[in-house]
């Protein structure tokens, strides 16, 4: 019983990570009906940007104020850098093909994803890196933080990693932020309008290009943040965005693509399912296949997703 609850907790924590990435997918799909395969690469870039900032000499400080500043800068830069990449990708690769066939959009997205992965391999070398401080100096604030990050809390006999709690908290905040943005602000209204009918939105005076660009920026930014948060926990390597990106997309579809709460729900479902499957004695080698199996099931029985609305095709 205890192990089951522990598994559920782990699943929720992992799921919140997928949720953060899935939010970006669902935002972009909701707005221009494009599956941005390259989204996983925004996640990856966030991890690298954070890595580079924290590798500078300024980060290896003992002063907690300075370190707090550098850390904040790293978080900010990883999110900002990822959103910059997202906007650039939209401008260079996706805007010129807007209005073309779906197959064109899909193939372009795949191409961009592969391009970014391989450019990262070229630029950053395929060797995995970690956020650990070289030499493991205990006086440096950074190692203290990392230690805390990797440490486990033990409330009520359960094991909870601080990192996962932080990710859960940040994911919750992200959900709240995005939901409020989309539902309660003028910009959110513009987003919803653009997603419902692009032409009409333009006629109503909405700058749809800007709306789309900013949507990409939002989605990319959160993905980058998620990347850095995960990168601090695990290793950083150029292909790290591939699987999480794919699973996050599955999460977005499972929850209902185009729906913000759906993305989060989908993420949690996938995270839970993966961990429960391993708990039920599934070989961990097949863990990745669980997400895809759920995708197939959802597409067969409820293609709109759990919270989604299936649009009937009209002739």
């Amino acid at each position, binding site marked *: 019983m205890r192990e089951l609850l522990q598994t559920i907790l782990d699943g929720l924590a992992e799921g919140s990570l997928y949720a953060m990435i899935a939010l970006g997918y669902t935002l972009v799909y909701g707005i221009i*009906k494009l*599956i941005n395969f390259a989204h996983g690469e925004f996640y990856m870039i966030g991890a690298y940007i954070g890595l580079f900032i924290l590798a500078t000499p300024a980060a290896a400080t003992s002063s907690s104020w300075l370190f707090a500043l550098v850390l904040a800068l790293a978080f900010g830069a990883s999110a900002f850098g990822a959103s910059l990449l997202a906007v650039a990708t939209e401008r260079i*690769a996706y805007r*010129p*093909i807007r209005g*073309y*066939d*779906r*197959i*064109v959009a*899909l*193939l*372009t997205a*795949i*191409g*961009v994803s*592969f*391009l970014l992965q*391989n*450019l990262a*391999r*070229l630029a950053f070398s395929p060797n995995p890196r970690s956020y650990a401080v070289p030499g493991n100096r205990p006086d440096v604030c950074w190692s203290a933080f990392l230690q805390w990050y990797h440490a486990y809390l033990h409330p009520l006999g359960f094991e909870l990693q601080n990192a996962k709690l932080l990710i859960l908290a940040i994911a919750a905040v992200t959900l709240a932020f995005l939901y409020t943005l989309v539902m309660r602000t003028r910009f959110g209204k513009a987003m919803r309008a653009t997603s419902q009918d692009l032409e009409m939105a333009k006629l109503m005076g909405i700058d749809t290009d800007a709306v789309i660009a900013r949507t990409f920026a939002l989605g990319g930014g959160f993905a980058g943040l998620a990347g850095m948060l995960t990168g601090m926990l695990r290793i950083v390597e150029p292909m790290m965005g591939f699987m999480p990106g*794919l699973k996050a*997309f*599955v999460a977005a*579809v499972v929850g209902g693509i185009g729906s913000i709460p759906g993305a989060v729900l989908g993420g949690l479902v996938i995270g839970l399912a993966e961990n429960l499957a391993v708990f039920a004695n599934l*070989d961990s*080698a*097949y863990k*990745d*296949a669980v*997400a*895809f*199996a759920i*995708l*197939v099931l959802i*597409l*067969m029985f409820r*293609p709109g997703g759990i919270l989604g609305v299936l649009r009937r*095709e009209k*002739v």
Partner: protein
Amino acid sequence: MADIVFSALLYMGIFVILSISLNLINGFTGMFSLGHAAFFGIGAYAAALYMNAVEPVLYSPAYWTHLCIGIALAMLAAGVAGLAIGVPCLRLTGDYLAIATLAFGEIVRIFLQSFRQDVFGGPRGLTLAVDKLDSHWAFLVVLAAIALVTIVVRNIKSSAAGRAFLAIRENEIAAQVMGMNASFLKVEAFVIGSALAGLAGALFAYSRCLIAPKDFGLMCTIMVLLMIVLGGLGSITGAILGAVVLGLIDPLVRYLPEIFAAMTGGEEDVAVLLMAKENPQIIYALLLIVLIRLRPEGIFGTRELSDLFRRGERAPS
């Protein structure tokens, strides 16, 4: 030297068959499948396992019989897999179908990597117990296979079923209104396409000593996709052309620094070309992006080579 040339040609040939098979699904019927490499892999593993079980002596008369049986088994296995994957995906269109087939492809690859490692060989791959065919013999077999596949697919294209596939691509609902059983036809196209991919897989297995799951991943599917996009979705000639062109580009990219040096007579290594050599996938990714934007219909579009020789009016399909 001849060995290298024949090897290159035979891999080009295998990819020709793969391109034609994917073209049947993507180009003719308009179903956007991203899991094609899975069928390639299933066919390869089926053929390899059969050969490992039977272990005929190379080039004995029994060998050729077992080769044919192995190919048949591979096609059957891949076709059944196509059925298993096609039926659930019936109702899906466009993006959703792409993702579902991508997911299936990944599931297959994960299975080949992890399931029963004593049988399938695990991540390192399956070694074949039989010696591989010499490259010139393998090339002849592949050539024969290409000829057969081209004739069969061409006949399919001009048959009622083929026209039905094309109709589904153009407008599925209109085709249904005209009385075509779209679901059945889509599954039919999927199964035929996957069986042909299985054929390619069997030939692939016979020409190598080792097959590994990483050969059958997303990158493989993307390469084949690039080939048919380059040649023209919906055109058999295009698929062949695309496979040939990409088969030529591949060694070109690998040896580009040397070629450049030879041409300019200089000792300098151009950094850009060295980078390209390290990472040929960047070139392919760029090619895909640029190509799909500048000329989405590819070189041949939906026309065939034979259309160029036709006199009189005939609407290309």
